[in-house]
């Protein structure tokens, strides 16, 4: 097969779509007013902003007044956790989360521990799922917040959020879900879901980087993270990033319109998984077969290391990522892979391929043609391959 460029790292970021860029352009060229200004230029921008907020809210099943735009998913996660923790300090200082959260949530919790809060990090099963029963058991009288991600960014596991939210409400505890990987990839209606807060990020669904949101259910109060001019109903100051908000709205509408076609993506995912496992011995799937993000593939290959695998795939024009320590700043492999019980050796040899609607059957064929010989080439170089086989 002729060399091609295959972008299979959509869980890291996605290509901004042309339609999204087209929708944003007027806000950069003509409609660039400040929505807080009272003159016509400003008020026109205000109308555009209000319209975008209403469209985003409609996609998520929320009220427009429940959507707060932020700079990114990380800000939303920080705000939700920190804001809820401090707003409920009179009730208690205990938070429940899981061991497989994104660092935006995990490190916020670790900081809160330094500030005197107590955090329970729940274990997950071998497929990366948090058990609702474990959440229930962990809730104490002084628990104020349960923060569990909707879907895992590394291994694609979809969490039982409706069950967890129900338990939280029965116990009078706030429920936040980091849905950065899920929004656009799973049908989401916040009211049906029952969560109090939900975060999302634009660049995971073909909008540009630099825009996120936090849904905060009506009546839920959390402390501000950013103070200033009182934008976003006084809850998140900073001049509204109108072009990016418009782009986010467009991207979310496109994703929502394609939501019933996600089983086509899931079929391609399953073909990738099945053929990788069939063609490459000593490989395993990380995360579940069922209840998995439609575009997520995460596999481990024994006897080799993920960064070198990723680099050789890159040489062939394939963009992927790995949970190996060598790809991170620390010397530890992925906390998610360790939490599902993988030994360090196998966590080092992991590969994540994340595909979208845009990924073609030819792209999948190309990956399946290039990957096995690359794995073999690295195994032939590996001192532990012959010893163990």
């Amino acid at each position, binding site marked *: 097969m002729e060399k091609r460029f295959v972008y299979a790292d959509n869980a890291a970021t996605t290509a901004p779509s042309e339609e999204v860029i087209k929708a944003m352009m007027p806000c950069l060229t003509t409609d660039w007013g400040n929505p807080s200004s009272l003159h016509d230029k400003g008020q026109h921008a205000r109308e555009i902003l209000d319209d975008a907020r209403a469209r985003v809210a409609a996609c998520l099943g929320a009220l427009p007044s429940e959507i707060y735009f932020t700079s990114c998913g990380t800000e939303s996660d920080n705000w939700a956790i920190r804001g809820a923790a401090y707003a409920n300090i009179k009730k208690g200082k205990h938070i429940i989360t899981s061991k497989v959260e994104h660092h935006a949530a995990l490190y916020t919790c670790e900081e809160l521990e330094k500030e005197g809060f107590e955090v329970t990090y729940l274990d997950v099963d071998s497929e990366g799922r948090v058990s609702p029963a474990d959440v229930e058991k962990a809730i104490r009288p002084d628990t104020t917040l349960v923060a569990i991600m909707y879907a895992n960014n590394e291994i694609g596991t979809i969490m039982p959020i409706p069950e967890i939210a129900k338990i939280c409400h029965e116990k009078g505890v706030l429920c936040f879900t980091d849905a950065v990987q899920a929004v656009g990839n799973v049908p989401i209606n916040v009211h049906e879901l029952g969560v109090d807060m939900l975060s999302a990020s634009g660049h995971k669904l073909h909008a540009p980087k630099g825009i996120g949101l936090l849904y905060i259910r009506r009546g839920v109060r959390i402390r501000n993270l950013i103070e200033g001019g009182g934008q976003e109903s006084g809850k998140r100051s900073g001049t509204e990033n109108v072009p990016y908000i418009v782009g986010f709205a467009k991207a979310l509408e496109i994703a929502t319109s394609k939501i019933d076609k996600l089983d086509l993506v899931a079929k391609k995912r399953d073909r990738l998984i099945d053929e990788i496992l069939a063609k490459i011995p000593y490989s395993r799937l990380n995360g579940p077969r069922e209840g998995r993000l439609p575009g997520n593939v995460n596999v481990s290959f024994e006897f080799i290391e993920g960064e070198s695998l990723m680099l050789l795939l890159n040489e062939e024009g394939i963009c992927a990522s790995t949970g190996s320590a060598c790809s991170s700043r620390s010397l530890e492999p992925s906390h998610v892979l360790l939490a599902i019980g993988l030994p360090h050796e196998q966590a080092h040899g992991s590969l994540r391929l994340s595909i979208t609607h845009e990924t073609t059957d030819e792209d999948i064929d190309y990956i399946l043609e290039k990957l096995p010989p690359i794995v073999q080439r690295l195994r032939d*170089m590996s001192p532990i391959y012959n010893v163990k086989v």
Partner: protein
Amino acid sequence: MLYSEKVMDHFTHPRNVGEIPDADGVGEVGNAVCGDIMKMYIKVRDGIIVDVKFKTFGCGSAIATSSMATEMIKGHSIDEALTLTNKAVVEALDGLPPAKIHCSVLAEEAVKAAIADYYKRNGIDKEVPGACDGCCSSCCHAEEHGHFHSRDGEEK
């Protein structure tokens, strides 16, 4: 790009990969838990390393540093090979990102471990300073062995 052109060249076209079945010395350092293992084989004639081969489990820079280290000692005397420092390997590769300096430490140690094994097999009563017995992990002890670990190794 994460790595220099030289690193990518040695990673994608590694020199001296393989094993020497009748090697005179074999050294293995690192461990799978840390994600790097280097195994080095040397063939020695009259104090000269006439052949060297390696096998490495690890990231791109682990493979590249192994390859470069073998090139730097092949055809040289044991005494010369013992003077090989991880810093020299880094410089020969036109630099490594700071987080990857430990790979060069591992390469230096693999050479020393192979020579220590050669001494042992031949009843040569010589110490190899800085040799690693392979039981420890390079990532965690590089500093205490006093290896070059400064920021000079940053990518240029």
